[in-house]
């Protein structure tokens, strides 16, 4: 099945800083989603982005499907951005999402 790897595993930011999170996947994807898991464990949808670029406020994401990677950009980070960011993908073979190991982000005031 598809493999998903995220980097870096941990990220410490000062409030106001910008950052880039990376997701590499091993095969063609039909679905790629970015999630933010808050301290209470809820997985919050950020982007559905199997290809192209999307922006939502201070967050944006780009997926280059031909090169099998996706990037999540956080600009002007805030303490509420802290948590774990997951990338998840499903390939042509089925619907189930395969998650990466996550990037744990801590934004310090």
């Amino acid at each position, binding site marked *: 099945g598809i493999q998903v790897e995220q980097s870096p595993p941990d990220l410490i930011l000062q409030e106001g800083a910008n950052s880039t999170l990376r997701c590499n996947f091993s095969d063609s994807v039909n*679905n790629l989603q970015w999630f933010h898991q808050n301290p209470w*464990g*809820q997985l919050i*949808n950020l982007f559905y982005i199997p290809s192209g670029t999307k922006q939502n406020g201070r967050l944006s994401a780009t997926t280059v499907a031909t090169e099998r990677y996706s990037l999540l950009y956080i600009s002007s980070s805030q303490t509420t951005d802290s948590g774990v960011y*997951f990338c*998840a993908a499903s390939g*042509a073979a089925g*619907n189930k999402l395969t998650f990466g190991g996550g990037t744990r982000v801590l934004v310090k005031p």
Partner: protein
Amino acid sequence: GAGVSQSPRYKVAKRGQDVALRCDPISGHVSLFWYQQALGQGPEFLTYFQNEAQLDKSGLPSDRFFAERPEGSVSTLKIQRTQQEDSAVYLCASNTLGESTDTQYFGPGTRLTVL
């Protein structure tokens, strides 16, 4: 509208007990997924329903795990004779079209602790 809901939010079981975890998907969503998330890890797929049909149960870790969705709406994940290694957060997700090219929406999860 209402999102995916799960109950109970927390469950403590003694080793050997049976547990049942419930998922209410978003109304009208065709597909329903169960995932297991161990501490410090990403979620891992357990099983998938399209309406009432269980189309993929390749992720269920043992025959102690059983899932059903008899009327194509609410789903129950049952774990028999719980073991300590079953301790995890169990997440349910649903999507509209039953296709891979569709956003999955997740519930808040049930945190299971087996003592």
